[in-house]
């Protein structure tokens, strides 16, 4: 099962490497990782997507919690949650393709953020599978470059991850 684990981390040198190191050291895999400081500059928020059975995920969260720099942690996939990923994609856009790509972008509620005579740069946010579908719809042969941020997320409702 795919899990999204969000955690608050001391914003200190080496803290991120402890988290990443834990995954390689214990043979856990990281599908994606996002990290940035929070409104409290002493804390970073990290979101990791990983895949494993319940037993493995339990071990991952326990070991993450054991890291001294990890302040708080939540497995977002345990409850209902919102997940988003941002993608910037450059596609070939010439001739009749230009209109077609514009239409597809609108359907996916993306935005064309840069234009040349032959290329569109498109920005799209959504759950990861929506971004996948967009790339499928555009077709491999038109895609020139893809930059994705990896998943970040937040739980629905009143629950918050804070100190």
């Amino acid at each position, binding site marked *: 099962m795919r899990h999204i684990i969000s955690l608050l981390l001391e914003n200190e040198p080496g803290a991120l*490497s402890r988290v990443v190191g834990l995954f390689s050291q214990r043979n856990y895999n990281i599908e994606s990782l996002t990290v940035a400081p929070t409104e409290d500059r002493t804390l970073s928020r990290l979101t990791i997507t990983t895949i494993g059975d319940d037993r493995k995920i339990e071990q991952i969260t326990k070991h993450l919690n054991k890291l001294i720099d990890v302040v708080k942690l939540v497995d977002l996939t345990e409850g209902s949650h919102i997940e988003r990923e941002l993608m910037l994609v450059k596609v070939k856009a010439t001739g009749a393709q230009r209109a077609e790509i514009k239409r597809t972008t609108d359907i996916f509620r993306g935005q064309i953020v840069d234009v040349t005579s032959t290329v569109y740069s498109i920005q799209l946010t959504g759950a990861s599978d929506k971004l996948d579908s967009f790339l499928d719809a555009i077709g491999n042969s038109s895609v020139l470059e893809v930059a994705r941020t990896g998943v970040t997320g937040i739980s629905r409702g009143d629950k918050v991850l804070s100190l």
Partner: protein
Amino acid sequence: MELLSGGEMLIRALHDEGVELLFGYPGGAALHIYDAIFNQDKVEHILVRHEQAATHAADGYARATGKPGVVLVTSGPGATNAITGIATAFMDSIPMVVISGQVDSSLIGSDAFQETDMVGISRPIVKHSFMVQNAEDIPVIVKKAFYIATTGRPGPVVIDVPKDVTDPARKFEYRYPETVKMRSYSVPAKGHTGQIKKAVEILLSAKRPVIYAGGGVIQGNASELLTQLARMLGYPVTNTLMGLGAFPAPDTQFLGMLGMHGTYEANMAMHFSDVVLGIGVRFDDRVTNAVSKFCPGAKILHVDIDPASISKTVAADVPIVGSVTSVLEEMLELIKQSETQVDKKSIDMWWQQIEGWRAKDCLKVVSADNDVIKPQQVVQAVYKATKGEAYVSSDVGQHQMFAAQYYHFNKPRRWINSGGLGTMGFGFPAAFGVQLAFPDAISVCITGEGSIQMCIQELATCLQYGLPVKIVCLNNQSLGMVRQWQDMQYGGRYSHSTYAESLPDFVKLVEAYGHVGIRITKLSELDQKMEEAFALKNRLVFVDVSVDPSEHVYPMAIKGGSMKDMYLSKTERT
């Protein structure tokens, strides 16, 4: 307020933390710190001959006293030499603080002379690490380091100190914090009462219970409570390799060590049990054998301070996260109050069954012909000569298992051994670390001629500080444990496990270092010469005992089987 340099603050903070001893080896990046050591007399520094030995000595000191071991090394090779000892302490959850010198802050990342990324290299084998950025932070960092190293599940902590931070010309106000609070680190204290109640109920209604206790009981200073619990219930107890001494070995309730080289009765009892109470253990692969076949009929009650140890390899039916002391205290109280009584009849029948297994006498030693000494007999002779009262450290190999099997540890913290990492070279430095902690005690290292050569240079350290450690070498002229596996699994092809022609004359060697050497080659002289060795109370004595090189350690778990699957001798298996 006092003004101190970074180097002075470091040493002063150690003193304020209660540190009496420090094991180390100097070098460029640590020289300001060494100068600060020179100018004080509160913290004693022991100069080793190799940084690996500094970590093992600090580790031995920590295991025997329960206090954190402290190490000081220089950057680069000094730091990397310490790595094996840090990993050894990490695997066995030993409290340790390692201070490593580092190149000047301005040079970090430039491949400077003797620069190595110590925080990076040690990251997977420390509980935590610090890189000091400002000298003013030193007191708080030292406080945090000791707090982290010694609380919860203990472990080593590294403090990497760039040289400029310790500059004697720059002085700062020094104040050592009395307490420390970290929002990201909390120590689990008491176990969940509901869970403990559940465990006690299952425990009291057990028909074939086993108490399986490990190093956590020793680390948590809970041996007394464990013994009370076991006596109150009348249940059989087994200890892991790390837990030896947690329960008094001479006690009739003790089944011996369990696991790969555990006793027949301990392993059989585990396999056929209906309730296993695991306390301060981690269901290590050297204990469980094939996890899928582990204790098929047992409910597992698991008490440990580290949540990540619980249900890691074997799923617990009743997990209890908490300090072993608090959980055992609560269990004892609940048992006293409980209306359920121990099922006396079933327990009697269980003991009958266990006595049947015990009658097999799996550790019986049969003397060889021709006055040849069996390695087991050497451990028995050490036990006799020390009246069971010694601190016994060991290295890794057959001699280690013989020591574990034949020295009957009566008290916790007497058995000093690298169980998790299995580090050859650990035993001798650990033994002198113990000797420094307890100058009047007997500290003996039971070793092999292979292992002892991994830290033999420490003979010089022992001369310098007058440490009368006893080294008993079970000399089988081979890497015996490797050879045993080659006998059993590789058709007796001794690939690089023998070196009889090139062994040093250990007696001459230790004499060259200024110590006493005694050679024993005949069974008929074993006891007497061993007595003589231990009678030399103020000297380091190296006892080189020629033992039967063909001997194997038994019982031995059969790979891929359950705990009841064991070889009992070269010709017999369960």
